[in-house]
Structure formats: structure tokens, C-alpha cells
């Protein structure tokens, strides 16, 4: 008889929603999910956003986020039903038997307190060790997790260390009270690929070394395949498929699981440069005001009409800064930017209306890029009015055409952004950019905040629109899988300079420089044992860890 640590039976979770203009409604978001977890094993919960995976993970601590509450079923931790516990009993469970690692450690650490005090807080509060013992334990964990200067690391404040380090510190915080179960809620999603791999390895090693059991929640099947023993695929609050890692990855039974496994399979034939480049960046150097450090160093790239140039690199590599220089938000100190045959003024305020119209942007966070109090019709209609003077019926008709182009249908025209899903919001942003009839759209990490299947849909849409409208994309991303799917040419950026540049096939064909190799090898692959293989063959350390 295996030693069952966590036993979830027919778990049902509900929430109250407040649709605008209607009475509050109680809805069920998880519909009877069951699973068990043995001591020392790792179960991966996977699914897109809204699948209920975080909600299920938190139910193992009897916790409901916001208005979410557990409405039915049983959750046994070490044999006792924690849903029947009183608040005092739950406090003894949380932070002692079950601990939690959040997606954004940067937000989950209290900015006003030293890291060490937060890491050992539960250990002290539950009376598990003296302060000196707890600190020694924390330092040991810092060392195990590969944090720099483990003896003094804890003396720093959260803002003084990097995102990848904080994520590891949060893992240390979860492991410090020596719990039986750790809930990892998308612990590497917010990190660069190169940093993700280090954190992933550290987490895997820590799980292995301490013998703790874990629930590992993520939307990235390739990641979860590296750390889990079992995987449960969730969709809309229901179990789609539940089995061992090799069953799910190698012989998926359900249609949905198969879609997840083959999500990166968009094929895109590389187009060769033809005609005059629509965008020509020559020897551009730029720095932020009041600093004496060049964030862009002598960058030169070209982009041809109807093609896609992907700019890839880790955070801090200067790829978004390049977009700021092109759009005029950060005037370059040196160099020249030619757009559609004419040289662009460096300063935004000196640019002509046509320059602005023909150069549009789409952002990573679609929901903050739209006014929440405007309807979809107003949002897409704004550039139509501003650039083309369209009004009334003509404007509405054009908005409807654009909605058709982004495959959303006219029913959305009077809806507000809050009523749309993440993918739909991004589609509206694309329509707004297209409304200006641009020659070039700068796409800044437009799929990073989306679920893989939704992101794949957006990429297909962008490729489609490129064929119809002949628009060029400057595609900024840290995700090399995306790059392979849509780019014609690629610029790899590292510390503000272009490290490698050329046609897609050339850039992605060996021999690689060390940095490109690191980037490429860090993209998680849907393969068992990938993580160990990569770590064994690395040539350089990632910069951002």
C-alpha cells in the first residue's frame, strides 16, 4: 500500500461572478476533480488559464483566492479532511505541512522586509526551530538552490535581487519549515527561458534532495514533463487526462492533450528579402537620460515589406529598447532609421502623421493597452477617426470589417474589454493596429502573456493578416519557439548589441555562437530527460540568473 499524502476526492469549487449590469451569479469553476499524491512524488497540473489548476492547487491548503470557495468534495492531507478544519487548524497546516510557491515571487515577497526574515518566518512562528537554527537552515537552502553568496543573500531586500533569484528564494521559503507538500504555482512562467532552466533545475534538485511531495502547476507541458512523476491535464475545471508523464507525453489519448503536445508545430516557410526594405536601422546607439550606459550599441537591421523580423533575447538585452528607438520614444544618440524610404526624425514630436500611422504597435499586456471604459467599437474606431476622419456609419462598417478580419465577428462591437478573454483582447489590439493601414507593426511580446493554444491562434492570425495586408512585423520576443514559427529573419540581441543576424534558416543552423546556443538549448522540449541533457551540455551561464 503506497503512502498517500494528498487525497482529493470529487473536489468542487465555486465562485461568485458579477457580470456588468446583472445580478451576481454563483458559478461552478471546478466540477468534481479527484487525484492522489504519494509522499515524495510530483504531480503536474496542466491546462490553460481558467482551467482551474491554480484553484485546485490552493485547495490543498483549503484556500480560495478572491471570491472563490470550495463547495464540495473532500481534501485529505495525511489522512485528515482539511476542509472540515477550523481556522486555527488551517493555520497549523498552512506554512507547516503544505507550503506555496507563487508565480510572481517579485510580488509575493513583502518589499518592506529582508528576505531572510520572510524565509524563516513560518519556521519560527510554528516553533519548529530557534532563530539561529532556522537561519542556518535557510542559508543551507540558499546554497542548495544555487543562490549567490548564500551566507549573506538573506540580508538583502527583495528589490535588490533578480527575478530568478527571488523565485529560488521563494522555493527556499517554502522548503524551510520542512513541509510534506509544496504547491508550485507556475514558478518559472515569468522568467526568461535561460533563467527558467536554472530555476527548474534548482527546484527539481531541491525536491529530490528533501524528499518533499509537490504539486507542480503550469501551462507549459514541456516544463512539467521535466519535473513530474504524474500529470493531470485540466480543461474548464474538468480532468481531461490523468496518467504518468510518459503516458501523457508519448501516448496521449485525448484530442486536447495531443493539441497541447504539438502546440509549437506552426510551419512557416522563410521568405527571401525582396525589393526595398520598409525599415532600415543603421548603427543605432541609444541611452536613457541621466545614464552613461548605452542600452543599444551600434544596432543595424533591415526588414522587407510583408516579412517578419524577429528580435530575440533575454530581458535586459535591449530588444524592447530597440522598439522604443524606432517609434521615437527614445531618440537615438547615433545612427539613422529609415522607414518606407524616408528618414525618420529621431524625436517623436517631429514625426509626421503618416509616419505615426504607418508604424503601429501591439503590446504584451492587451488589457492595460485598452481603455477599460471604451467599447471594442470605440477602441478600433479611434484610429479610423484620427487618421482617416471616418465617422458614424462608415466608421462602424469599417470596424465590422476589421472584426471579421480578426475572426471575432460583429457581435463584439459593443462589448467592453473586461468581457473578453485574453486572446480576444489581443485580437482587438491587432485590429486597432490594422485600422491605421500600417506598413509595419511592432509586436512587443504579444503572445507571452497568453496560453500556448491561444498564442498559437494569435500567431496564425498574424501570419494570415500578413498575407492579406502585406504588412511587415518587427516581432520582439524571448520565446524561440515562436520565432521558429513566424520569422523570416532573426536578430539575436545580447546586452544591447546584435549578436547574430540573418535569414531564419541561417541563424538557426549551427555552428552557433555561445549565446545563441544557450538561448536555443533553453527552450523546453517535449521530451523526457531534456533538462538533464541540456544542463550537461551547456557552454555558458545565463546572464539574468
Amino acid at each position: 500500500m503506497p503512502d498517500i499524502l494528498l487525497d482529493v476526492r470529487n473536489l468542487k469549487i465555486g465562485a461568485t461572478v458579477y457580470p456588468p449590469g446583472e445580478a451576481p451569479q454563483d458559478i461552478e469553476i471546478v466540477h468534481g476533480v479527484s487525484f492522489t499524491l504519494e509522499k515524495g512524488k510530483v504531480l503536474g497540473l496542466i491546462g490553460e488559464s481558467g482551467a482551474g489548476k491554480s484553484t485546485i492547487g490552493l485547495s490543498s491548503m483549503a484556500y480560495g483566492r478572491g471570491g472563490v470557495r470550495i463547495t464540495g468534495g473532500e481534501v485529505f492531507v495525511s489522512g485528515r479532511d482539511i476542509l472540515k478544519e477550523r481556522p486555527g487548524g488551517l493555520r497549523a497546516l498552512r506554512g507547516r505541512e503544505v507550503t506555496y510557491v507563487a508565480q510572481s515571487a517579485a510580488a509575493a515577497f513583502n518589499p518592506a522586509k529582508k528576505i531572510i526574515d520572510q524565509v524563516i518566518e513560518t519556521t519560527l512562528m510554528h516553533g519548529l526551530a530557534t532563530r539561529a537554527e532556522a537561519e542556518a537552515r535557510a542559508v543551507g537552502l540558499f546554497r542548495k538552490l544555487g543562490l549567490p553568496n548564500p551566507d549573506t543573500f538573506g540580508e538583502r531586500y527583495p528589490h535588490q535581487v533578480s527575478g530568478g533569484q527571488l523565485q529560488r528564494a521563494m522555493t527556499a521559503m517554502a522548503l524551510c519549515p520542512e513541509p510534506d507538500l509544496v504547491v508550485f504555482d507556475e514558478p518559472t512562467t515569468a522568467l526568461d527561458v535561460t533563467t527558467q532552466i536554472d530555476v527548474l533545475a534548482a527546484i527539481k534538485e531541491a525536491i529530490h534532495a528533501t524528499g518533499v511531495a509537490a504539486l507542480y502547476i503550469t501551462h507549459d507541458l514541456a516544463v512539467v514533463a521535466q519535473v513530474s512523476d504524474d500529470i493531470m491535464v485540466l480543461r474548464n475545471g474538468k480532468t481531461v487526462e490523468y496518467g504518468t508523464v510518459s503516458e501523457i507525453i508519448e501516448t496521449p489519448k485525448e484530442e486536447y492533450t495531443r493539441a497541447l503536445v504539438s502546440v509549437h508545430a506552426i510551419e512557416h516557410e522563410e521568405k527571401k528579402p525582396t525589393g526595398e526594405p520598409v525599415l532600415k536601422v543603421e548603427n543605432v546607439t541609444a541611452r536613457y537620460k541621466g545614464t552613461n550606459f548605452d542600452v543599444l550599441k551600434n544596432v543595424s537591421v533591415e526588414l522587407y515589406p510583408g516579412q517578419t523580423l524577429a528580435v530575440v533575447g533575454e530581458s535586459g538585452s535591449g530588444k524592447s529598447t530597440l522598439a522604443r528607438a524606432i517609434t521615437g520614444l527614445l531618440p537615438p544618440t547615433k545612427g539613422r532609421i529609415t522607414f518606407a524610404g524616408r528618414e525618420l526624425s529621431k524625436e517623436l514630436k517631429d514625426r509626421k502623421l503618416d509616419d505615426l500611422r504607418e508604424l503601429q504597435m501591439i503590446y504584451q499586456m492587451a488589457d492595460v493597452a485598452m481603455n477599460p471604459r471604451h467599447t471594442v467599437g470605440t477602441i478600433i474606431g479611434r484610429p479610423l477617426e484620427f487618421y482617416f476622419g471616418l465617422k458614424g456609419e462608415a466608421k462602424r462598417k469599417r470596424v465590422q470589417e476589421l472584426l471579421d478580419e480578426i475572426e471575432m465577428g460583429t457581435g463584439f462591437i459593443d462589448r467592453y474589454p473586461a468581457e473578453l478573454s485574453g486572446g480576444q483582447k489581443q485580437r482587438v489590439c491587432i485590429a486597432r493596429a490594422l485600422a491605421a493601414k500600417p506598413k509595419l507593426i511592432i509586436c512587443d511580446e504579444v503572445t507571452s502573456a497568453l496560453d500556448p493554444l491561444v498564442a498559437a491562434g494569435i500567431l496564425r492570425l498574424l501570419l494570415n493578416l500578413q498575407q492579406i495586408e502585406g504588412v511587415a512585423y518587427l516581432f520582439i520576443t524571448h520565446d524561440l519557439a515562436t520565432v521558429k514559427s513566424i520569422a523570416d529573419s532573426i536578430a539575436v540581441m545580447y546586452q544591447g548589441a546584435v549578436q547574430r543576424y540573418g535569414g531564419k534558416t541561417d541563424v538557426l543552423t549551427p555552428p552557433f555562437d555561445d549565446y545563441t546556443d544557450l538561448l536555443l538549448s533553453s527552450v523546453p522540449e517535449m521530451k523526457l530527460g531534456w533538462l538533464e541533457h541540456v544542463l550537461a551540455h551547456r557552454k555558458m551561464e545565463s546572464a539574468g540568473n
Partner: protein
Amino acid sequence: MHPIIKLLAQRLSLGLLLLLAASALIFIGVELLPGDVAQSILGQSATETALRNLREELGLNEPALTRYFNWLFAAIQGDLGTALTNGQSISKAVGERLGNTLFLAFWAAIISVPLAIILGLIAVRYRNRWPDKLISAVTLSTISLPEFVAGYLLMYLFTVQFRIFSPISTIYSGMSLGEKLSAIALPVMVLVLVVLAHMMRMTRAAILNVMQSAYVETAELKGLRPFVIIARHAFPNAIAPVVNVVMLNLAYLVVGVVVVEVVFVYPGMGQYLVDHVTKRDLPVVQACGLIFAAVYIGLNIMADVISILANPRLRHPK
């Protein structure tokens, strides 16, 4: 240089600049009033010659700019001029009165600030339950009550019904601290009631805002007690907005207590100012204005400084 020192130096110099501007405004305001000091002293029936002589004597024929700077430099050296009504040094009178006002403000602050913050913490702990609603209802009713009504109500309660305190809060130098405290108990109570609600509600709102943060959820998932979460994890991040409201209320305790001082016959700055306004004693009005401006600006700079010091990003740069 540590960036925080630079920031603090910046704030301080800005404050001084602001004080200079305030002094100019006060001077201009008094200057714009019809009539001048000579006229006020000698009255409406004074002869032209007498006026001319007095103006000569007081230096009123100098250009306004010269008089402004003379006044300013004297004020910097601690000389605020002489009162017209009794010919005494303003600095001396103000020194005594300001001491009394600060004494009253100090005790009101010592009670009201911790009380407001603790009530705010309790209101957050039991938000939307009866303790929260009770605290809000009580503090809001006390702030809605005009000060003089609250003053007379307390006076009726504590001097007529229960003879605990004296209705007259006059204090003088020969009194012991205990006697002084007993004398000012009623005005302190009124002031506490008046300033409590603002600070309590700001504390509550600021902490509730922080309670939405991910790190508060982390604390909850660590199994910490609710009050520990509020006091240890939420409050340190809510200090900046709370301090600003606290300082505004402290400033009010110094410069806005005229009504309370009159009701309880307390010899503070407010009553001194009102007395001399009615007597058209312009040098005194000017001096009081300058002191009030200095207190206001000083307390607000202090709020800024505390907010800056409370921010770990500024305290511990990368």
C-alpha cells in the same frame, strides 16, 4: 552620496523656498489691506503731520521691498517686531503662546495618532463586520460634530454632571505637569475626537489597499494570524499615505485650534491671533502667519522624509 541624502536635501531646500514664498505672500497680503500701521496706531482722526512723523519714525516711507527684507531678516534672527497694541516684543509673547499651543497639540497627538492607527488596524481585521462599522460610525459622527458643540457637550458632561475637570483650561507657568494635564484634558479630548476619523479612515483605506497584494496572500498561506498579517506585513507598506494624513492633522492641531482655544479660554496661538486681528495689530498678524506657515511646511516636509525613509527601495538602493 547615498541617494536618500540627496532626496532629503532636495526636500529641505524646497521647503525653505516654499517658506520664503509664503512669507512674501503674507507680507503682500498685509500690505494690500487699506490703511497702514501709522493709521492704525493714531486712529481715523489723526492729523496729516502726526501721520507723517510716525511713518518717518517707523520707517514706513521706505519702499515695500526694503521693508519686506528688513522684516524677513529680523524674523530670521528671531525678532518679529513689536505689537502696536501694547508695544511689547512679539517674539516674547509668541514664544509663550506657541509653547502652550504645542503643549496642547503634543498631548492631543500622543493620544490620537496611536489610537487612530490601532483603530484602523482593528477596522481592517474585522472589515465589514460590526467592529469596523462601529469604529467608522463613531469616528465619523465625532468629526461631523462642530468643535464647539463637542466642546460644550464634554464640558457639560465632565464639569456639570460629573465634576472631574475644570471648564476653564487656562494654564500658567507655576502649575505642575499634573495640574496642567488636568486643565487641558477637555480640549485634548475635543481635538482627539476631531482628528481621529481622518487618520483612522486613511489607515484603514491604505492597509486595505495593501491587503490586495500578493505578499499578503503569501502571508495568509504561511498560516499567520490575521492581526499579524495586518500589523507586520501590510502596515509597513502603508506607512507613506498614513504619515501624510497624520501630518496634515498635526498641522491642524497647531494652526487650526482657534475655536477650541476660545471655548476653553486656553492661552494659545489661535486666541492670540484672533485677539490681534480684531485690534488690527498688523505686525502680530504677520508674525503669526509666518509661524503657522513654518509649522505647516515643516510638518509636511517631515511627512515626506518619513515616507522616503519608509521606502525600502530608497533606503537600500541596489
